[in-house]
């Protein structure tokens, strides 16, 4: 049970991280009319972070074999 609680705390921390990364002032660092890999910097950053965020949630919530018991 405490394992589950710990994971919920990680998710909370993740949400705080997301809230910071997707807001002023961090966002302003990427507001440039340039391309990376042929993609606008801001667009690239937002979607990369988004994918990473989804991946991290999936890692935290995934069912582990030990949980079955």
């Amino acid at each position, binding site marked *: 049970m405490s394992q589950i609680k710990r994971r919920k705390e990680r998710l909370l921390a993740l949400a705080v991280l*997301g809230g910071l990364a997707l807001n*002023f002032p961090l966002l302003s660092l990427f507001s440039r009319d340039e*391309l990376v890999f042929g993609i606008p910097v801001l*667009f690239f950053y*937002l979607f990369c972070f*988004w994918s990473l965020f989804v991946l991290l*949630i999936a890692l935290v919530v995934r069912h582990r074999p030990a949980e079955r018991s």
Partner: protein
Amino acid sequence: MSWQWLVPTVSIAYLGLLFAVAYYADRRAGQGRSLVNNPTIYTLSIAVYCTSWTYYGSVGRAAENGVGFLPIFLGPTLMAALWWSLLGKIIAIAKSNHITSIADFIASRYGKSPALGGMVTLFVVVGIMPYIALQLKAVAVSLDVLIHHLDVGVAAGVTAPLHYETALYVAMILALFAILFGTRHLDASERHEGMVTAIAFESIVKLGAFLLVGLFVTYGLFDGFADLFGQALADPGLKRLMTFEVVSGGYASWFSMTFLAMMAVLFLPRQFQVLVVENVNANHLRQAAWLFPLYLLAFNLFVLPIALAGRLLFAHHGMDPDIFVLTLPIHGRQDWLALLVYIGGLSAATSMVIVEAIALSTMVSNDWIIPLLLRFRAAFRDDLSGVILTIRRGIIVGLMLLGYLYFRLIGESHTLVSIGMVSFAAVAQFVPAILLGIYWPGASRRGAMAGLLAGFLVWSHTLLLASFAKSGWIAASFLTEGPWGITWLKPQALFGLTLFDPITHSVFWSMLANVGLLLTISLFDRQTAVEQIQALNFVNVFEKGAKGGDEYLWSGFVAVGDLKKVLSRFVGPEQADLDFAHYLRQRHLKLDDNAQAPAHLVAFAERRLTGAIGSASARVMISSVVKGESLDLLGVMRILDETSQVIEYSQRLELKSRQLEAATRQLQEANTRLQELDRLKDEFISTVSHELRTPLTAIRAFSEILRDNEEMDAMERHKFTEIIIKEAERLTRLVNQVLDLAKMESGKMEWHVAEVDLAQITREAVDATCQLFDNKSIQLRNEVPEHAPRLQADRDKIIQVVINLLSNAVKFCTAHTGLVVIQLLEDPEGAGLTVTDNGVGIPKDDLDRIFEKFHQVQNDAADLPLGTGLGLTICRRIVECHNGRIWAESTLGERTSFHFILPCPPDSTDPSTEPGPTAQNRQIACGAC
């Protein structure tokens, strides 16, 4: 080919397919092979969040605001990380209380208040109705735009004619769907599997269509992302779209939109419906927490490319960016793709309307119509379940017509443009009442009502009325100069705050008023009993025993039959019978209809009724049949108080009785010991007297012989005198030992503890007894080494022990062949001596008893000198008073060993060590021996 006919036909065919999917899922559910009990279907149903506003509007927004469309989807992504804990709790609460809507949730939390439920429902209808109208408009517009552009191509400056009736037909088909698949059972807390499956199916269709058009635009019309973005970057008008400068409202707007979207994804009525009411298993949240953000990510991947492509390709057409998704495939001569895109948009709109209609109909019927119905007592008599279902169906049709009417009235005005955000801001007003309500038991009904009311007034003033003013319904001066010319009440610059865009401005002021009032009033309020119990029920939903606190709410009397009758009026008699039978079987109860219903059964009936008619009405219904009072705050407090007092008393009693038991046991033990001691004392006295009498008899007998026989020869006389002296000595010894023993046992013996050397002690004891050995010609071997360990002990007493043991050994040895060996004994517990003789030995049975008083080994060897029978007893006393141990081992006919061992001080070589316990301490310690 005539698109004029084909497009409507395909639309109707698609809606027919939806009916088929829903029908199939309902049939599967009926067979017990549910499709919905699956985390992926659950996640897809949550994607009802993506409406036609997302589908068409995101591109339109991106074409003007760059990444400004993203907060609507980033907010839910952030929220998804909290679903497991936050939404998990909400689901648990809703399930244990049979809650079926957001209005019921808030009403139930704040003391099952009908007023609060009605208020929330009103706000929801006002806030969401434009949103439904927006969807109907999207369907009508997209249909006309598609047909028009398929016929005439994408020429400049041509706008499509709008056929309003399309929206009406669509609204009616959707109403039919909602009625068929959303109002099957009366208990709204039962799941609508067909509806959910159809929604999940629609989520796949809209995502697939949008991804296809995105891929076509990026790789068909352009040469991939790099080409598209490269061309856009070269265009000075589009270059800015890639930065944050174009986002209207800037970072503040970005932040407030993210916040609104976070809340909307949980608390929009349709979201609450699919997330909470339709949830089969709270564990599905775990997959939804990552799959849903992934769905949103996929949906948004091509929004900016499509918007940029539209801007590049239709630069001079003046085309509405909202329909880029439809016109780009036509521009690329992919008419069938355009048709598919249109179907995707249709699915986005219809799924939203269906779920919203079902959610709203539950709310309106449970929080408006049924409370009104219950006022007319006459209606109670019959089975109301059919009536309620009919009411719900009527409400669905009514809502659809209302949405259509709204669309017709302000269809062309720009009121609809930002209506999605306005609805989000309306829903955000429920957030403080819900979130504070499930984490803070102190939030009170009056606080929640005041907060909600204030929040909605501010919202209406700053957003709703302002948008009316913009569409010309109210004089424009309302916006520019404020109502009645009061400038600080200007709806978009309240109190002169001009820092923010209208949405952020409204969110700031409404949240300030809402949270502020909720907190302040709650802090100064007194909650009623129902409120307190519900607050604890909600906040502690995961704690064991939290459920069932509502049983305290019913203290009156009601017969089981009456209770069943109330339930059967709303769910039908068969269902009511089934429910009761099931519940009683679970609890192993047997109650006939005339029996008095226990409080938990009343609470069960209330919960069951809540699923059908909402918590507030359920409470009203149950209290109409329960005789006596439902408890007031004082009553509940008294019950709780009494209970806790009784518990405390019984705990105290238990403690007392435990103490008494312990005392009795101690007394019994003491008594037994006393009796034993008494018996020992008697025995001792009789033994001592007996032992004293033996030498006395001898002395007297020989003295009489000497007195009576004057002429006895000198030799004989001398021999008799010797005997008399010997017996007298024995008598003295005996008396001395008895005195010693008595002293030791009464604790009056004085002990002089000092450091002693075992080797020296042995030497002195040997010297003192050497005469005994010589007399019987017994050999004594002293094998104790010179450097024996030093002990803390009373030197004289230990010498006495050794002397006793040695003289004892002499007694049992045969003259001339006897051998006594004295050795050092060392082991971890301490040091001591072993005295071994090669005498007759002691039978095994006697080994333990030889240390008892006056116990003498019965022996056939008659010539053995008699001891006092106290020597070994004294040895044991002395050794035990030193916390040591004495014991004997023997092999019959071969040898006997006596061992005693005394504990060594912790570090006997350290001269600075304390010299051990003082004499006085010893005395006290020995008193217990």
